């Protein structure tokens, strides 16, 4: 029962997070500064999600070359710049990552 309470509670909270500013009755007008600030949401937020995954696998800070997450991320960045294709970069960098994990 407790698990279902957690699931439903989480569902409600996440939906509220997503919906609250889409509600037109909420009185809010965004200034041009606020809009400029929000323009950085994609790089800012997505980077923040990646950071701990890449630099802290298993919750431990690892800046060594034997960290496959770090190496593969560098490869992924290189692939995006080089191929300009989202799909190819994702597939090849994941392939590289799993090879590296298997090899190390």
């Amino acid at each position: 029962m407790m698990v279902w309470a957690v699931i439903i509670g989480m569902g409600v909270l996440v939906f509220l997070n997503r919906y609250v500013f889409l509600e037109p009755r909420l009185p809010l007008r965004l200034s041009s500064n606020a809009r400029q600030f929000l323009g950085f949401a994609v790089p800012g937020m997505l980077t923040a999600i990646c950071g701990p995954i890449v630099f802290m696998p298993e919750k431990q800070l690892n800046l060594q070359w034997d960290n496959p997450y770090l190496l593969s991320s560098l490869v992924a960045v290189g692939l995006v710049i080089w191929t300009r294709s989202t799909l190819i970069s994702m597939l090849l960098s994941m392939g590289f990552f799993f090879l590296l994990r298997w090899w190390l």
Partner: protein
Amino acid sequence: MSNSHLPRSAFLRGAAAIMPLSLATAPWGLLAGSMAIEANLTPLQGQGLSSIVFAGAAQLVAIGMLKGGAGVFSILLTTLLLTSQHLLYGMSMRSVISPLPGRWRVGLGFLLTDELFALTSQHDKQQFNRWYALGVGLTFYIAWNLFTLAGIVLGSSIPGLEHLGLDFSIAATFIALITPVVRNVPTVVCVAVSLFCSVLFSYWQWGSALVLSGLAGMAAGFICNKLYLERT
């Protein structure tokens, strides 16, 4: 009006645009499904997380906390902090989604993920198409739930799936989304600050590390942009 604005073709364009990201989310979805089983949730509960909550990072953390015996309140508080970037997405999409009828607002609101935001955030009022957004969101929702299902099925048969490093798929996906956006100095500053803070705050084990470091990066980019514009 061009053909591409018809509901059906806009929906299909959206579905096609999100397809690479949907496929790339497979390992992450497998992880969400198999970890739920590993933590002794029933298959229905594991699927319920993906179909009701629909937020990968929060799901994985919640499963970990359930396994560790955390209380309902602390799990919900962590969820709130961990998914608060969606407040910013909502704020940013407000001008295009809030004028829509209620069922569209609720529907697109429910489907508003990192990925949907990344694909539609640059659209202004003229470019934004609700059917395109629905195609993106719904396709991603279905893919996420199918991969979770696969994880639930596999998780019961392959133990130790969570040690394979499946979480790299989310990093690979987001790197592919971020890198093309980094085209000027303010964005470079934004990404650098966000990256540094996210590692530092996670190292300090702050519950709200994600949203705080994201905000720090956005603020740095914004300030840099102001200084940049004043100079030129």
